[in-house]
């Protein structure tokens, strides 16, 4: 900054430390709660320091799950979430990049119409069309399957726009040179455009993986078979047990495990994550 004001620096750090505490405190409590035995939650208030049951709780959740909730072991739910998030991210990128390629590099009848049909998906989030979409999926026999969990979510207007914007910045000369050299459209796409889009694809993958992992309402509707439960939706079933207090130590172990993969991705892929976020949303 322009001038030196010690009190303002102190204030700045103070604001940030308070901010970090507010952001981190709920998760700190969850981690602490997941290290205690079941008895710790019968007294008045939650303990604030770690207990000795860390390995017991996580071990039990990963291998057996919570028997009272009818949910499968967390290992299975984590695997389902992983499969779902990866399919959604990869498929969204794949179908978006070829759509954008068609729209930017070809001129054909109904091009504008196709563009608008894709654009409309922005205005139809799954939350507002749940019942008819559920009906379509159930009529197609896709309930309780990975296809049903993922396919209705993989159309992506934002990813298509991102690639379209990016392709428009690729110099025309590249394609002219490729054509002079006798390369056809698929060869140009594979050998020139794909390598150029690598960073964009990676950044987008981070964002879309998190998007897929966080899905809640959709898995809640299309899965009734515990074999296909995802961890984010499974947690709710554990926390909402009828006529009894939830087993907080176990629920919180599940919460921590459900948060961990996407949070680690954000922390370790921060550069790609920020790039993907800023570009897809703007």
């Amino acid at each position: 900054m322009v001038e030196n004001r010690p009190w303002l620096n102190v204030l700045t750090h103070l604001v940030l430390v308070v901010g970090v505490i507010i952001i981190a405190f709920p998760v700190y409590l969850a981690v602490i709660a997941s290290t205690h035995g079941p008895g710790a939650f019968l007294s008045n208030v939650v303990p604030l320091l770690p207990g000795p049951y860390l390995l017991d709780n996580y071990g039990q959740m990963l291998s057996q799950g919570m028997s009272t909730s009818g949910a499968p072991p967390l290992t299975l739910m984590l695997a389902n979430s992983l499969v779902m998030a990866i399919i959604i991210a990869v498929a969204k990128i794949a179908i978006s990049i070829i759509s954008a390629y068609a729209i930017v590099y070809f001129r054909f009848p109904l091009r504008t119409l196709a563009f608008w049909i894709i654009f409309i998906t922005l205005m139809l989030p799954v939350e507002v069309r749940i019942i008819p979409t559920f009906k379509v999926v159930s009529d197609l026999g896709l309930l309780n399957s990975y296809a049903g969990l993922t396919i209705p979510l993989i159309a992506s207007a934002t990813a298509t726009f991102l690639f379209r914007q990016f392709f428009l910045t690729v110099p025309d000369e590249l394609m002219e040179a490729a054509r002079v050299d006798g390369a056809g459209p698929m060869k140009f796409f594979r050998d020139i455009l794909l390598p150029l889009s690598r960073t964009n694809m990676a950044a987008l993958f981070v964002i879309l993986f998190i998007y897929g992992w966080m899905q809640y309402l959709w898995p809640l509707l299309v899965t009734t078979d515990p074999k296909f439960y995802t961890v984010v939706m499974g947690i709710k079933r554990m926390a909402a047990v009828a006529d009894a207090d939830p087993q907080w130590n176990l629920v919180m172990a599940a919460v921590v495990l459900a948060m961990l993969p996407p949070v680690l991705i954000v922390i370790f892929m921060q550069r790609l994550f920020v790039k993907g976020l800023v570009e897809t949303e703007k």
Partner: protein
Amino acid sequence: MQTKRTIFPNMWLPYGLLAPQLAITLVFFIWPALQAVKSSFEREDPFGFKTTFIWFANYSKLLADPMYLNALWRTLIFAVLVTVIAMGVSLVLAVAVNRLLRSGRVYTTLLVWPYAVAPVVAGILWWFMFNPSIGILSYVLGQMGVTWNHRVNADQAMILIVLAASWKQISYNFLFFVAGLQSVPASLSEAAAIDGAGPFKRFWTIVVPLLSPTTFFLLIVNINYAMFDTFGVVDATTSGGPAQSTNILVYKVYADGFLGLNIGSSAAQSVLLMLIVIVLTVVQFRFVERRVQY
């Protein structure tokens, strides 16, 4: 629409390339949306044997229904509170991080990760803290003489979902505010400082106007988030209760359609929600397009 100067002359390939995206869009987006519009004009008898076309009766019934108007009002309060809190807190944090050159990045990492926490998980975390019997925050409030029980107190239930939803959204707003602040040219601030403007005056006269495009963008995104992405927060904490006090529109569509099996009314609600998203998206897109040209 922009295109390339040169293009590939190919008749069928572009259709093949567009086919997967268009097929999914038509089957899972356009068709269900049309179905929603259609059934919003129909009444289905309880056994599903017969449907009658009833024009706008579902809509007029809905708009005269105090429960729906209540949900509309609650959604408005909720969206305004979440937007104001999430944007206010994140702006303060972003301004603070922007002042620091070296340690700013560490703070950024510590602040951005809630982006990856699912709304329903955020709901469970805050529910745990405000749990009337064992929650730490309800205990602290109890010590201060406030009896906390969001299962019976409507205002407290609203506070709970507002806090959980805002907590999750701070990191997103924070990143965009940091990006916006970093594009404010340092020379402007320096010139103003030489003219004798203090840090707060500089903030109001230079940073705030230059930040207004980002603020407007985030305003729309946050309203969108509060209205549509907070289903998980509500489902995990209050399930719309007590006495409908947190039954926001997107939760009501689900509750009426899936739990109440009132298809016509739920479809009419879906259509009204779609209209709201369309308005928000068009505003957002217009604005983004205008900005891109600069």
